[in-house]
């Protein structure tokens, strides 16, 4: 079954490592849904969070290929694991119109934050699990969404 998989790649902080990862994925025909590369507590080590579509077998093959990269230290597919806190971040620009108060109510319920208000629109930020973010988007859609940007997922293990 095709499924979304979240993969965490721990890599050595070397020049071009992100290009190696994305290059490998496209060379082997995998589509990336989202990818984030950022430093960690150890300046020599970066973590790359990757979301790809595919069957378990196919994603296992991706993971093995990524693991072969000389700069890859560790690779984890956390999709089927429960002991991870997974978060995503969104900035969303909604039509203000005359439904301002309704939108503020939703912001409250979702514990989101209004970061900017103009005559025409409101900009909101929200972080949380992906399903919460998707629900928020759906509820805002009727008011007219100008644009939104999502960060893609990041995760940390509970242990």
């Amino acid at each position: 079954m095709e499924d979304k998989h979240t993969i965490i790649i721990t890599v050595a902080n070397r020049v071009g490592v992100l290009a190696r990862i994305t290059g490998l994925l496209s060379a082997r025909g995998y589509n990336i849904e989202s990818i984030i590369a950022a430093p960690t507590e150890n300046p020599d080590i970066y973590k790359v969070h990757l979301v790809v579509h595919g069957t378990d077998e196919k994603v296992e093959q991706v993971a093995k290929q990524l693991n072969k990269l000389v700069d890859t230290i560790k690779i984890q597919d956390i999709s089927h694991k429960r002991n991870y806190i997974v978060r995503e971040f969104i900035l969303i620009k909604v039509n203000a119109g005359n439904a301002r108060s309704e939108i503020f109510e939703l912001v409250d319920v979702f514990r989101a934050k209004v970061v900017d208000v103009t005559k025409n629109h409101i900009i909101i930020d929200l972080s949380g699990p992906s399903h919460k973010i998707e629900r928020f988007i759906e509820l805002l859609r009727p008011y007219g969404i100008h644009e939104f940007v999502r960060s893609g997922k990041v995760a940390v293990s509970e242990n």
Partner: protein
Amino acid sequence: MTGAEILIDALKKEGVDVMFGYPGGVVIPIFDVLNRTREIRFILTRHEQGATHAADGYARATGKVGVCLVTSGPGATNTVTGIANAQLDSIPIVVISGQVRSPVIGTDAFQEADVVGLTRSICKHNYLVQNIEELPRIIKEAFHIASTGRPGPVSLDIPADIINASLKNYMYPKTVDLVGYKPTLKGNARQIERLAHAIANAKRPLLYTGGGIISSNASPELVKFINKTNIPVVITLMGLGSVPADHQLFLGMPGMHGRVAANYALMQCDLLVAVGTRFDDRVTGNLQTFAKQAIVAHVDIDPAEISKNVKTDIPVVGDAKNVLAELIQKVAARKPDEWNKTVNEWKTKHPLAYKQEKDGPIVPQYVIDRISHLMKDDAILVTDVGQHQMWSALFLRHRQPRSFLSSGGLGTMGFGLPAAMGAAMAFPKRQVIDISGDGSIQMNIQELATCAVNRIPVKIVVLNNGYLGMVRQWQQLFWKENYASTCLRQGPQCPPQCKGPGKKCKGVYWPDFVKVAEANGLLGLRAEKPSDVDKVLKQGFKTKGPVLMEFVVKSMENVYPMVPAGKSINEIITGDA
């Protein structure tokens, strides 16, 4: 010390004795140092592609890292095919290229090309050196990565300012520290136990081995293993020679142009033990039907190969040599049984055959058969890509490992001649024979001059059928004889829809290979009838220095057996022979 001096010193410390390449603006300082270095012999090829294949041939023949040195821009882009070729066959080479000065990288400077970008997907690892301090470490890592684990090519791109910069406290590191790179060499004991158990229980076990046996130097272990267990073995193109071809347990090469017995055995076995091989589509044919009755065990140093194409029941990640050695200890001896009888019957019933009529045209298989009889026992055979390659794989009596060098994965026409040069530089005392076709040889024919000038004694065999024979064969069998752009003699005087050379053929024999040889300073010989074959081969083999022997062969001969692309490997066309 300057970057150039550090590089050459490091190469010496890595044991490099021969290098191939081509100079250019940014690498002049390296050549300046190299020219004063007695320990490293440099061979100037006539094209950078030739240099990479020569380094590759050197690596295949010796097991050591092959090295080439080229300039930036076009020098580096010309190495791309050679790097990809080494990558697909897991051959350890280090390709060193000069790069434009660091400050102008990214400005489309003269002879600038993004080498790390170009080579990223076709090499095991690559480097763009950022400062002189890291140069020694990077060279050490490049050689380490190329030669350990599953070997492969490493590209090393050095900007001109770093080549010229100087470093005060130069020390060549003794070890590498790569947190993300630690190949697994020893097989998991429990999995090896499981495998031994599966072998004990199997009724129809089969061994399927490939280039991993060669790269881990596991031939002695493999022979010992089959002798103890009497398990028949099929060996891929990349592994030929790891068991002598006359060994009675050897069923031949499997796959698209494999022996019937080899393919039947793959389809019928109940335990398939794959070692150092990767279930390539040219071997497996239709994956849906491949070895369906078998429990699949896979021994490979590269974990990513396990279950990539065929689902594996018993995975063993490790070096083939280590794992086989351990397996020999654990496995019980087995006597030849019904299964051995069956496979031997297939072998006898479907022999490799060809017909050479006394007064007919020379058939290419006959030439290869005669080479096999007349060559020295320890000869190194190198091929190009196409029909002659398959005939060489099938009809040569392979005797020992690292003595049959062929471009398997990438299928690179033009590989043969430069790779043979590399092998000959590594083993000046051994006979090195390059078997090629009239198509392939023209893809790196400029290296004839390199052979002549450097007196590299490669014996070149050109099987001239006037066609790009393998593609023509497909056109004949699957494209209604529409020989589009495969006749090398076709010109404007010919009808556009030619169905092959008949009596009225207007094609022109071109080029004259004997003259090409002579123009390049080689002895050129030609055989046009069967009775000339031995004469030409004998004369060519006994001549010192490089020789080109042309054999004008039957143009429409096909390679059989053949499994059409995408079919099950037991759906074999055996042809008329």
